[in-house]
């Protein structure tokens, strides 16, 4: 099977008065149809930048410096503005953080949905658009009556599901959800995640879930990518990530998690994430790393594929060449 999404060496830089900040420094990954990838990292690690870059929605002072984003054979970076407008939502959809607050309060849900369809294809009849919207609402487990409602009549979880419904209206091949449940309580959160899961099965899309809730990742995704200072540190299957993380940062992240067995043990990661404008030399994690070696301070580790198929950027796993 061909991967539905291929990101090759994607780079984003923000040009600020204080200097250049490399918010995304050469990220590469692949996703198969129906696969779910979790993208985790601390705030400022470049998760959302990566999502925005994939959508080509980076605004100045930020700039995409290079790389490719290939969705179903098309490199999004080579499209014209016009073509990119059409590609958004139909090829690749983005559900931004706090999407539920982005619904227009004075427009009915239905009008906002048909608007999105109309913007992509003006030849679709009104009744067809309604039909498509109803189907999308059904697939996120909302009643048809929601079509005629205003956002204030819905609860947070329902609004979030409306946003998912809009995201999948045109059956995109890739759906990016940026912290879709961060403002919701656990029960609603589970409902929303189950909705995404079901919808994904229906349309066979690849899903990228961005967030820092490792619990959610453990329950939902197939693969986890750990980011730090705009770089991918490790990419592993969810089972490998939680049972045998390789990168020292991933290890620290996993052991900082509370679970039922280690009650009362709080193991944070010592130190703070560095500012992007003043990144440490070599491996950016070396000042906080417990396994730091001389080489880490000078040479940046490559993001390599290990013999067991896992991807890590760490000198500990440098295989002799």
């Amino acid at each position: 099977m061909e991967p539905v999404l291929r990101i090759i060496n994607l780079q984003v830089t923000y040009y600020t008065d204080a200097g250049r900040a490399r918010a995304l420094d050469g990220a590469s990954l692949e996703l198969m149809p129906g696969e779910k990838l979790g993208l985790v990292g601390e705030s400022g690690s470049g998760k959302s930048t990566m999502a925005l870059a994939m959508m080509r929605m980076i605004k100045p002072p930020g700039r995409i410096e290079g790389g490719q984003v290939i969705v179903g054979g098309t490199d999004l970076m080579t499209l014209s503005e016009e073509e990119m407008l059409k590609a958004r939502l139909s090829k690749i959809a983005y559900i931004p953080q706090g999407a539920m607050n982005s619904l227009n309060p004075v427009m009915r849900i239905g009008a906002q949905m048909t608007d999105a369809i109309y913007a992509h294809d003006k030849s679709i009849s009104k009744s067809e658009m309604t039909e498509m919207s109803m189907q999308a609402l059904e697939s996120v487990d909302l009643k048809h009556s929601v079509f005629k409602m205003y956002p204030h009549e819905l609860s947070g979880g329902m609004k979030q599901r409306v946003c998912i419904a809009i995201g999948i209206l045109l059956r995109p091949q890739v759906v990016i959800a940026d912290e879709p449940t961060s403002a919701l309580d656990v029960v609603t959160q589970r409902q929303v995640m189950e909705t995404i899961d079901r919808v994904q099965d229906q349309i066979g899309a690849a899903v990228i879930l961005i967030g820092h809730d490792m619990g959610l990742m453990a329950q939902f995704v197939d693969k986890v990518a750990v980011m730090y200072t705009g770089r991918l540190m490790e990419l592993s299957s969810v089972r490998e990530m939680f049972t045998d993380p390789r990168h020292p940062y991933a290890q620290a992240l996993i052991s900082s998690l509370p679970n039922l067995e280690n009650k009362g043990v709080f193991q944070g990661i010592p130190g703070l994430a560095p500012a992007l404008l003043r990144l440490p030399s070599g491996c950016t994690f070396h000042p906080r790393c417990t396994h730091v070696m001389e080489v880490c301070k000078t040479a940046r580790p490559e993001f390599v594929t290990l013999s067991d198929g896992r991807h890590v950027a760490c000198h500990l796993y440098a295989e002799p060449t």
Partner: protein
Amino acid sequence: MPKLLEFKNVTKIYSGGGFLSKGGSTTALSNLSLTLNEDEPTIMTVAGESGSGKTTLAMLLLGFISPTSGQILYRGQDISALKGEDRITFRREVQAVFQDPFAVFNPFYPVDHLLTVPIKRFKLAKSKNEARDRMVEALTAVGLHPQDILGRFPHQLSGGQRQRINVARALLLQPKLLVADEPVSMVDASLRANILETLRTLQTNYGVSIIYITHDLTTAYHIARSIIVLYRGAVMEAGDVDTVIKAPQHPYTRLLIDSIPWPDINRRWGETEIKARESDQSDVGPGCRFYARCPFAMDKCKNPPPLFRASEHQAVSCYLFEEHPQIVPEKLSDLLPV
């Protein structure tokens, strides 16, 4: 035993009937009683989903709003009747840490401002030097390096650092009671552990009682001794945090705990079906507040269920536990461990 804080049958009703609303009122908290003792500092979690009344509880406790009925006593005095010196003491001894570590800072002042204001307001220091010593001491106690913090502006600090400054500010005033309303929900997962650790140190080293308000049962489990689970303003289940999280009894608590996404690959999300959509639960009768969504709903659930003592340190407000001895709400605090 002297009582630090006492909620006596506190009810808070927000009445509707505004200009555009259809009228009707919301019972945000119904008939809650709880007690904290002065000599036994503890960490108590109040858990529940959005709309369960947990923030109302915090607001009541801080005296920002007053109860519709019932009384809130702080060291035996009704907090709504506190005046003069007593009121200032109350304001100093009961402190809060709020959810959003970004919103509490004034971006035009260095972060010192957040610490110097209370020092001046409560006359905690006689000289500038003493004030600075106090600030350094408080910041060190929460695990920050004062030289990295003092003189900086809020935007130069991370969310975790800011939230710890909030804790330091509370600590500066040597409170007896700290209300922490979702203190870690907006902080990165990797920093949560540090803040929770700081809170726990406050309790053990400084003898501060903490009411930890959250919807995140994972952190609640790690930090608290006892837990009260609220749903739409009513107590569903309460007790020892280990018992409640590991062996939840009330159908609502079971659903809640089943929905926790544990960061553990071998512990899958539960199979309990989530019943009822949010829109269907708008009206609740006088009975059990979970009635509309409960898979075990019975006819008698239309009457409000009393609390039953399901085990030594666990009380459940549900008719499924009828055979257990009933306890009056006022005695609820007695079975909570400290």
